[in-house]
């Protein structure tokens, strides 16, 4: 059971940097991480060569909850470790992990422009996908985004 061993190993090296753990599926662990600890967690995983960063998913919990959740999915064979970072919707700032793994840059650019999250220290924050004439205050993947077709393109 390499999958389980991988996940347990991740848990053991990250133990004190995380706040909580859960196992939503047999091949998945979720680790809840404070934004301040994110870079340390990613560095630990990187130095341990634990899998690779498969994706960064940004979730909008909606204006009522007032939170964004950013998920960092790491994959090692069948094992998927998801780092869940919750940030304030009113002040959406995340530390960038590009200093540890440069290839996170496109993921951070995408998440940043779609949800309006600032990744502090990301090397390139130019829009990756949005059109040049897009209204800069409209973030399309926010639940309360008003997309009437006038946002600068067909939304």
């Amino acid at each position, binding site marked *: 059971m390499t999958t389980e061993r991988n996940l347990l190993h991740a848990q053991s090296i990250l133990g004190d940097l995380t706040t909580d753990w859960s196992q*939503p*599926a047999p*091949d*998945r662990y979720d680790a809840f991480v404070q934004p301040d600890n994110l870079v340390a967690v990613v560095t630990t995983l990187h130095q341990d*060569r634990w899998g*690779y*960063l*498969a*994706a960064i*998913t*940004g*979730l*909008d919990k909606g204006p009522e909850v007032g939170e964004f959740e950013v*998920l960092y*999915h790491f*994959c090692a*064979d*069948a094992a*998927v470790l*998801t780092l869940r970072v919750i940030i304030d919707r009113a002040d959406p700032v995340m530390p960038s992990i590009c200093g540890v*793994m*440069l*290839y*996170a*840059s*496109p*993921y951070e650019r*995408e998440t940043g422009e*779609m949800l309006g999250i600032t990744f502090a220290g990301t090397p*390139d924050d*130019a*829009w*990756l*996908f*949005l*059109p040049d004439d897009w209204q800069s205050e409209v973030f*399309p*993947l926010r639940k309360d*985004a008003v*997309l009437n077709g006038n946002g600068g393109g*067909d*939304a």
Partner: protein
Amino acid sequence: MTQPANRKRFTVPIGPQHPALKEPGHFAFDVDGEIVQSASVRLGYAHRGIEKATESRTWVQNLYLLERICGICSHIHATAYCLGVEKLAQVEVPPRAQAIRSLVAELERIHSHLLWLGVAAHESGFDTLFMYSWRDRETVMNILEVMTGNRVHYSANVLGGVKYDVDDQQAATIREGLDFLEERTLHYLEVVSTDSLFLQRTRNIGVMDREAAQLSGVIGPTGRASNVQRDVRLDSPYAAYADHPITPVYETTGDLLARFVVRLREQLTSIDYIRMLLDHLPNSPLTTRMPRRVKAGEAISRVEAPRGELFYYIKSNGGDMPDRIHVRTPTLCNIASVAQLVIGQHLADVPMILVGIDPCFSCNDRTSVICQDGQRDMWDWARLRQYGIDHYGTHYTKDLG
């Protein structure tokens, strides 16, 4: 160019409209003479906001939307989505449907790799290989058409199973086509690994060793050409790959040549795999019942697209529409490596290095380009095809062999 300030940064833009790119993307390369100094990327020229659109469509409607993210790997997008939603709904898909999903996926891989071979050959100016490989691609498209009625958007998946079965006659047609494709693929493998002029353009060009490949998060055939042993079909088997493991293909040199060889050898494995699947198609129904509402929760679905790992994150809050679907396509993983790979290379090699990762901007941009004729004249496929042959036959040549 005349001002001294510009002299240091002579930027050659590639895209959004450029003959090297079959899809829009923008790359700016700063060159000194013919040598590239730095590169930057801008995408999104084909962005349609499909992720946002999924949030206002039902689970079933989304299948058709997501399938249209990409024109080449449509089936694998639908498969990733179906697997994820089925996981959430805790639905067990019958084994025959699983096998057919893998079958179509491998045919799609052959289709995609042949397409890539042509494009990559064209980038290097080897138009004969381009023409030949695209001619042979017709064969695999015909096979897919025999199975599903469509050449590009096969639409083989439904939530809880597949739409199409394979009968004995179709299996025979598929085998016949595969024999031809195997012969051709072996020939191309010989061409790319022995043609000395072509080798000058591929050997030791754009080299990425294993360490660099791992550090830059490269996946799929691009990674496997650098001996990065990642293949979701093997690492986290889905569909039929659990019962029938696939033989992975690795190369060690990590140059453009290795990327050619890996993809061609993968075609051969796919051909073998399809033959094996046809021999061992389990007997079972094709679909199972799927609830209209999907239980709350989140699922991660990973599949091996022709270009590498395709990652779906699906979140449901118990309704008949998803709360969030996030698609991470293989190109997004690999595109960062291009910007590093091209530095120090000749401008002439840039298009090949770029194409070496088999980028798919449509996938990346989550778009669909739907061509619709002004008038809808119902022609069946045979008629359309005959029209094409007649058209070119009478208009352009009398001696069409």
